[in-house]
């Protein structure tokens, strides 16, 4: 009863929708109509085998990454392993932390390899791989809560910036989080790097043992979760301003460390409508929406 992968153009006839199991990609390329078609065709062709490749080595992808971890075979799996490797020394991590970003990256790589594009993006449920030709830029909106249509800020990525990956992680998202951030959005060199770092930073936005945070072992919800019996966040009560600040500070510390190690370019941490930004440029990448900008119906 395997549902077939879906490859189709969205009603706007510009974007392509690729869907297979838990993978859901929105793809858009800019260029001439010929190069765009060629890129889409290559992306679709590559996409249809990605999920099967990943599932072929799923147990290894779900296992903790250690220095001596077994080599992975698939191209996407290799991207995942490379992205999580820098963290293997200091914390528990599995290649799954990078899966969304790595898939996006692989499809983008296929597209840019097949055709000359001015711009392209592959958006895998908020984990985005970007391609920019010189002079090109992208405007990206950041959503605080995936269950609500709300933007907490925006960021512009231009050709000159060392950013080709954007990822967001938080307890409200599709993947489990050990932390309480509503959303941590990370800009990094690649989508898989951004994906991993967002996970790590979102985990660090935390108030251990806080009574208004409800947590359960991951396997109680998803028996085959790579997180095993680690406690994942299920609900966060209204926190005092001082607690919000403390949790954000704890996440920001980790973000600063990753920034120093060159693992991220910038990060925006969002918790109960407070936002903290870590970047080399004092957050100039990010535009926070002013209170007034969304005022009328």
């Amino acid at each position: 009863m395997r549902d077939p992968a879906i490859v189709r153009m969205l009603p706007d006839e510009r974007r392509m929708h690729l869907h297979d199991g838990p993978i859901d990609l929105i793809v858009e390329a800019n260029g001439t109509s010929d190069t765009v078609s060629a890129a889409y065709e290559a992306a679709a062709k590559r996409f249809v085998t990605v999920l099967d490749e990943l599932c072929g080595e799923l147990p290894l992808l779900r296992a903790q990454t250690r220095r001596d971890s077994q080599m992975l075979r698939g191209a996407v799996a290799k991207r995942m392993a490379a992205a999580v490797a820098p963290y293997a020394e200091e914390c528990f991590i599995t290649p799954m932390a990078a899966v969304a970003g790595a898939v996006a990256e692989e499809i983008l790589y296929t597209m840019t390899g097949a055709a000359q594009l001015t711009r392209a993006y592959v958006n895998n449920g908020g984990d985005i791989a970007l391609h920019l030709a010189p002079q090109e830029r992208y405007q990206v909106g950041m959503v605080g809560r995936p269950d609500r249509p709300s933007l907490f800020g925006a960021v512009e990525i231009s050709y000159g910036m060392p950013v080709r990956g954007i990822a967001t992680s938080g307890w409200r998202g599709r993947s489990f989080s050990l932390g309480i951030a509503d959303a941590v959005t990370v800009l990094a060199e690649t989508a898989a790097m951004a994906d991993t770092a967002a996970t790590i930073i979102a985990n660090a936005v935390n108030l251990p043992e806080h009574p208004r945070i409800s947590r359960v072992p991951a396997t109680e919800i998803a028996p085959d979760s790579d997180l095993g019996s680690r406690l994942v966040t299920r609900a966060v009560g209204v926190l005092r301003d001082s607690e919000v600040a403390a949790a954000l500070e704890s996440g920001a510390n980790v973000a600063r460390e990753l920034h120093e190690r060159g693992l991220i370019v910038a990060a925006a941490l969002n918790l109960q409508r407070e936002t903290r930004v870590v970047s080399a440029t004092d957050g100039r990448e990010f535009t926070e929406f002013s209170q007034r900008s969304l005022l009328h119906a």
Partner: protein
Amino acid sequence: MADVLPADTIRCDACPVLCYIKRGQTGACDRYGNADGQLVRVDPHILLDRAKSQGAPLVPFLERESEWDGTLVKGKDTFVTAIGAGTTYPDYKPAPFIVSSEVDGVDMVTVVTEGIFSYCGVKLKIDTDRNLGPERNLVRAQGEPVGHVTTAEYGSQMLSLGGVHRLTGGTKSEGRVTCETLLDLCNGKEVELTIDEGARVRVAAGKAPVVNGQQEERMRVGCGSATIGMFAKQWLGKVDDVVVVDDHITGVLSEHQAGKFLGVRQTGIAIKGRRSTPGRYFQVANPGTGWGGTDISDPLTILKPFKEKFAWPKLRLLMVSTTGEQFAYFELDELLRPVQEELPAELQESVARIRENCEPALTTVLFMAGAGGSLRAGVTENPVKLTHSVKASLTRVTCGGAPAYIWPGGGITFMVDVTRMPENAFGYVPTPALVAPMEFTLKKEDYAALGGHMDHMRPLSEVLAEKERKRQVHSLPENPWPLQPRRAKE
């Protein structure tokens, strides 16, 4: 992983990940879930299905083609709501969905969008005679001001919560808590509110209010005076006098017009408070949460000594509240002092009758908001024409399929009973502001005439055929079907 699964777990075979899914959970894709041991598709965009049967429950929308083909694409019986449709705000772009369908030979268009409302709030009607607090006093949630007491209506206390000044005019945390409170109330969740110098209430749309820890059962049958009028005949001969205790107007049978008419004898009873007309007293006590919305727990405290000239030993007196929840029966002793006795069987019926005539006490939540700006631009290129069309009743406005009352005058200011909308129809943005679904339904020719985005119109069948993001719920039988063409001034 063991081949034998725990009883509450299923294995999804929709894709090679082969997730184990526990009851009530979804798999890694968030698209397939375990509903009571069954693998089902679970997706958010809500389609309203015209229910043939009464009170039909929510059903999951099965999306694999073989299962739903032909069952839904019946045009006029499916209405695309705005819940989960998203919004194109802050753009002037056409609304996310502009859906055309044919109903009884008439081409209808429904413009579907979710609006972001800063100008919005809820009006709460809390069925209770208990005084909740002085008019104009603040109503708080989590200690933050979220609204105020407005007035009392017949048998109910009225609160106004939210509004643009609470949402965006105060402190950050006031706005945030106000937004949360409105969101919870609109989505049918229970909210605890405290009123300055007043009561603590727990309220949820369509449920009985809880005032100071005590759940309200029934609304009063009428004011004290009205209750005398309604039941005078049933008391005749069984009791010498009746006092119906009420915070608004306390009624006294022997002095009341109805008693006089039936020839009830004077009893020499004397009531504290301000006499309005014979047998009707204002302010017999202070407002409170005791008998009939007063602050008394012992009804004798509102009586002055009986007048010797008229009263007699063994005089029988019934005191009862306007809901029949409190009652006491007295007989006068030789010194004309009331002594409490067991309520005689023949009076029990009248007390029960009062109770039975009281309707269940509920909290009702009306969401009220104004649609202006870009929301209208998503419908038509000339926004004021939409307002005119709504005012002329050519365009039907619904919220998640529920009918909206349009306030006369300028703009599109509307009210909707949140219990008539599908579950969890509301969202929010951190502005803070509420996100509510709105659908504008009108004849295709009218839509063209008001400058509609005709080029963005899509047939219903196409929207339904889209693979993802749909959930089907049944329409509520009390709601008019949104696609029924309107007659002017319906």
